């Protein structure tokens, strides 16, 4: 009891207006911010990969495998913040054993499993099967057995089999696009369907989430491509980079329009919550929403990319602008998630008071755990790049 009081006292001092007792402390903190951010990166990276397979955008071929592995690395970690937030991770498998079809949150387990097992792993497997067989024959010892196991001891390298691999990967990508939409659209759905919360309750939510996911995923793969390629002593393929930047630009335009539509719609509707939401946006969320999300995370990169494209800037400058823009986009999209998750809990359901979010450093919900969770996908990605190098492609050479 005393612990709770010690925890609540500083928060109480920062409350403004009237607020119900159960709204003083936010229950969805930083971990719940990270969760949609990570799933968004997965969906976005996959959409970039699908450009190659389904929409035949040959220019971005160098990032195809990289995108798939990025999606996998982030997908493996995506449920971790939820497990850390809910506690009792040992019980989480029960949602698979006794499916509750009326609970959107419970059904997410199946969406996740479908996306991981039926789409992403299968597509990566079909795409890498030939290489894994070749690597197994070229290496020795433990590595040889690892590749043999990963390829499920497959050995058929006939033209027919390779053709089938290609076809299967394409079909899986086609299935994967709606699945990726489902995966991240679901996250938006969870927030959008909370009808008691005017900041969340909007049918546009899944679509806004989806497009911000595509933006963040494309920007992430662009960053990884720009960091990893020079590190390996290779030259960055400017045609590929220009194309990715173009897609990033288009996705941002759509995302920006959708968010603007949502914003205008809210103002035009002017429901009873509009006053407190206006207070929220112009007060507690001003820096994270207007400055970081809108200005630094959206308008600055949009204008920067547009300027280098229109001015036909030299490659050196383009690379710099793309890199900085992609970084800013990451900050902006993270801020978007923050503004949705934390912002939605800062105001009282009485519409006449605001509370504050105090982030801890230690503890399961603290900053330290969050940083660890955010670093983990990159560690997994490093291992994946070592085991399944996305760069050399004997299938093509």
């Amino acid at each position, binding site marked *: 009891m005393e612990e709770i009081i010690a925890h609540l006292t500083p928060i109480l001092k920062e409350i403004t207006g*009237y607020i*119900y*007792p159960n709204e003083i402390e936010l229950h969805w903190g930083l971990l719940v911010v990270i969760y949609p951010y990570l799933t968004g990166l997965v969906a976005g990276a996959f959409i970039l990969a699908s450009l190659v397979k389904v929409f035949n955008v040959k220019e971005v071929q160098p990032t195809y495998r990289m995108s798939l592995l990025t999606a996998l690395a982030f997908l493996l970690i995506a449920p971790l913040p939820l497990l850390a937030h809910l506690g009792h991770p040992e019980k989480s498998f*029960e949602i*698979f*054993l*006794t499916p*509750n079809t*009326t609970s959107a949150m419970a059904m997410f387990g199946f969406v996740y499993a479908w996306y991981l097992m039926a789409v992403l792993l*299968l597509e990566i*497997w*079909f795409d890498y*099967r030939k290489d894994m067989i070749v690597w197994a024959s070229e290496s020795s010892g433990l590595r040889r057995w690892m590749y043999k196991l990963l390829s*499920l*001891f*497959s*050995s*058929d390298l006939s033209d*027919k*089999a390779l053709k*089938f*691999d290609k076809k299967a990967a394409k079909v899986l990508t086609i299935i994967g696009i709606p699945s990726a939409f489902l995966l991240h659209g679901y996250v938006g759905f969870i927030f959008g369907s909370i009808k008691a919360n005017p900041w969340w309750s909007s049918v546009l939510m899944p679509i806004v989430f989806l497009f911000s996911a595509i933006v963040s995923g494309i920007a992430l793969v662009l960053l990884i491509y720009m960091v990893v390629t020079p590190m390996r002593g290779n030259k960055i393929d400017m045609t590929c980079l220009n194309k990715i930047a173009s897609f990033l630009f288009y996705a941002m335009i759509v995302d920006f329009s959708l968010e603007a539509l949502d914003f205008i719609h809210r103002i035009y509707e002017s429901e009873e919550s509009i006053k407190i939401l206006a207070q929220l946006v112009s007060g507690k969320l001003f820096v994270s929403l207007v400055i970081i999300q809108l200005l630094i995370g959206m308008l600055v990169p949009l204008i920067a990319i547009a300027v280098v494209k229109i001015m036909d800037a030299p490659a050196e400058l383009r690379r710099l602008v793309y890199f900085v823009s992609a970084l800013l986009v990451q900050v902006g999209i993270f801020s978007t998630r923050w503004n949705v998750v934390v912002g939605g809990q800062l105001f009282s359901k009485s519409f006449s008071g605001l509370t504050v979010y105090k982030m801890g450093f230690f503890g399961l919900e603290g900053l330290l755990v969050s940083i660890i969770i955010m670093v983990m996908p990159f560690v997994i990605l490093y291992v994946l790049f070592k085991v399944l190098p996305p760069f050399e492609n004997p299938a093509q050479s």
Partner: protein
Amino acid sequence: MDLDNFNWEEINKKLKESVRAMKSFWKSLPEQVKRLTVIVIVLIFALIFVRGLLVPADFGKYGHYRASAIDEIISQEINYAGHGICLECHDDIVEKKQSSYHKGVSCEVCHGPAAKHTESPDEVSLRAPRGRGYCPLCHEYLPSRPTGFPQIVSASHNPMKPCITCHNPHDPKPPQTPKECSACHAEIARTKSLSRHIYVPCVRCHEAPVDHKIKPREVLPSKPQTREFCGGCHGEDADSDKGIPRIDLAEHYEHYTCWQCHYPHLPEAP
């Protein structure tokens, strides 16, 4: 069922044919699909096996939960007796409480779980809180409590006396009728204290019959009904203090009543 009518040879032949067809279908599958199919089949059987092992047999009988959980809950020890049974022995107190403000408060709220006491009244006796800690759980001032609900600030309300020296919990009418409205309308009094209206006594706007203090919900005080009432002080030609803000009643948002925009207990609020 007449087994003699079955043409066993025919059935056998068809069975063999279908097995052959399945075999040739399996052979026609690409090698990698065969391997994946095996994995998928293993996974499906593993899931079925684990489900059979871990999901309780009676899960889902009534709903999305274990049916035997109900029996487990039923078999839990009963601690509370319910307020009906108290009447059997303590009829005088129950009757008194029934006509008091505390009629909605069950006996066990203060006296604690009474199931054991009702079974063996002589051996198990119930206690009631006698210190100052308990009553403020409901009656300490909190802005979210409804107006009219009696609230005190226990630090300043007769700080050394236990509540029961003045208030009988079974009929907690205060020993003296409260002189100030703030005894019950604490939230309004505190709000008004921040406003210039602090100098306006409650009865200037509300006519409160004496009986309101005794039967607060049955006899209600009046509220101003017209714009002209506020105009009594705030109108241009009102006979009031010079510092009071004035408006032209005929011009100033003439289709609205004053309290649609100004909260009378804190008119400074935006």
